């Protein structure tokens, strides 16, 4: 196992032979005319297994910033939610020095209540006391840039506005192990700059950061190690330049973007 190398470094996250499998009820036919008849409108319901992460193992050491790359549906987010302890794994084990915090698609809050109440609720779910949240509520609102709308129900917010609020709630605290899923890079340019600055700040304070991204530029800018996942399997793990180069060759990109 990878665990045996570099004995002088302190491990922070160990992913040991992890498999993530989703079981989905699906009519087991493709939308093409099947040999057995029935085709698209087949009534047969069967349990289909989707093997999203296959036998992935790696060890992350203190101070590393790890980039996770791969095409859509390759299993990056499944692996990250598993590391955050939100997605049950089929087999294997994940060890961490602290509870990893996932800054991703984020807390799906209650759409019928106001943004301010959602701040309180999200904070309580994350384990903060009412006092702490009340002290931070104003800063969170300001960071999200939603001062005017914070009393309106969240269902009246645009997609960008609610993503901003979710990010602001999750980012209101420092975390030892941080997982940033770039799916949250919505919002306008101004908010993007602000959130990127906040992410860098957190990365400097947090020992370990995972960054899931399709932007090779931000991967090269921020990461000290890159893991490439394709179809659930780990294809490469190593120095950013090397892995990104191989990935670009695979996808046919010529420029780094």
């Amino acid at each position, binding site marked *: *196992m990878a*665990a*045996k190398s570099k004995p002088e470094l*302190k*491990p*922070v*996250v*160990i992913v*040991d032979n992890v498999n993530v499998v*989703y*079981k*989905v*009820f699906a009519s087991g036919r493709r939308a093409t005319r099947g040999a057995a008849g029935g085709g698209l409108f087949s009534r047969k319901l069967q349990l289909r297994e989707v093997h999203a992460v296959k036998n992935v193992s790696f060890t992350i050491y203190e101070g590393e910033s790890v980039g996770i790359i791969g095409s859509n549906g390759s299993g990056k987010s499944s692996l990250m*939610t*598993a*590391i*955050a*302890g*939100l*997605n*049950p*794994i089929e087999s294997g*084990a*994940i*060890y*961490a*020095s602290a*509870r*990893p915090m*996932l800054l*991703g*698609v*984020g*807390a*799906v*809050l*209650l759409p*019928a*209540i106001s943004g301010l*109440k959602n701040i*309180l*609720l*999200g904070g*309580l*779910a*994350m*384990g903060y*006391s*009412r006092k702490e949240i009340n002290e931070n509520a104003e800063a969170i609102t300001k960071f999200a840039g939603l001062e005017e709308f914070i009393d309106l*129900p969240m269902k009246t917010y645009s997609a960008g506005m609610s993503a901003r609020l979710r990010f602001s709630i999750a980012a209101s605290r420092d975390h030892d192990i941080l997982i940033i899923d770039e799916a949250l890079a919505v919002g306008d340019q101004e908010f993007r700059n602000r959130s990127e600055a906040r992410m860098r700040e957190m990365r400097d304070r947090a020992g370990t950061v995972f960054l899931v991204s399709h932007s090779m530029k931000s991967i090269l800018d921020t990461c000290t190690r890159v893991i490439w996942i394709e179809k659930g399997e780990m294809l490469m793990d190593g120095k950013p330049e090397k892995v990104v180069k191989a990935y670009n060759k695979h996808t046919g990109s010529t420029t780094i973007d």
Partner: protein
Amino acid sequence: MSVADYAKQNGLKKVGAREPLLEYVRHAWQRRDFAYVMALYTNQAQNSKNRLGRWWIVLLPTLQAAVYGLIFGVLLGGSRPENFIPYLFTGVFLFSFLQGAFANGATSVTSNIGLVRSLSFPRILLPTNAVIQQVFSLLPQVGLLLVTLIAFRQPITVNWLLLIPILFLMVIFAFGLATISARLTVHVQDLNKLIPFITRIVFYVSGIFFSMDKVLHNYPVALQIANLNPVYVYISLARGAVVEGYSMNATMWISAIAWAASFLVIGVWFFWKAEERYGREI
């Protein structure tokens, strides 16, 4: 050296592993504010959906009781239980609480799956939140019940105070019920479809609108079995406390305490057993 030993040696903990039961309960208790605030806000959100808002909390069971009173009052004719209206109202109001806790508990994890997938907290807070929501509705309903009782000239006695421990035991029982139904529907979503039937059956066998003693008069064994039904136990205890002509006895109290305690323990244990599985795609 195995990976597990290596992790342990470096002070790493397994992610997503279920905590020991006591630790789990302690953590859930620390975060109880979350369940409370979530219940409060969900209720507010629901009430703001329609014009009459929170009035529906008392209007709905009153309408229900009125309909049942009209239909069964006429149907049953002479075999109506004594003191029919207070008898019926007590039954309908308490039953609607238990029914709500059961049904709301059943969907508490499945309908909050987004929350489960994005934040880590003891999942038992979700069925807890469902029961708290029901308690918020129960309190005004009990108020209305008392007003109805006075309107129907029931004497106010010291026994009315016994409603407090009775309702307390019933809430504990409902909490156990909600945690069990919450886990069951996670495993088998189809159960959601059966819940209305289960509640209907329980409604008809719990003596909400008829007198169990009168109907099962000639079947002592069946009556004994019926007396074990927890829903019936809580409702008849409450009737014994507030409705004239009905009484409580020690067996009822023991059975009420036993149901509450066993459902609390079994429910928490049963829910905790599957803690790391909530959130899995089905």
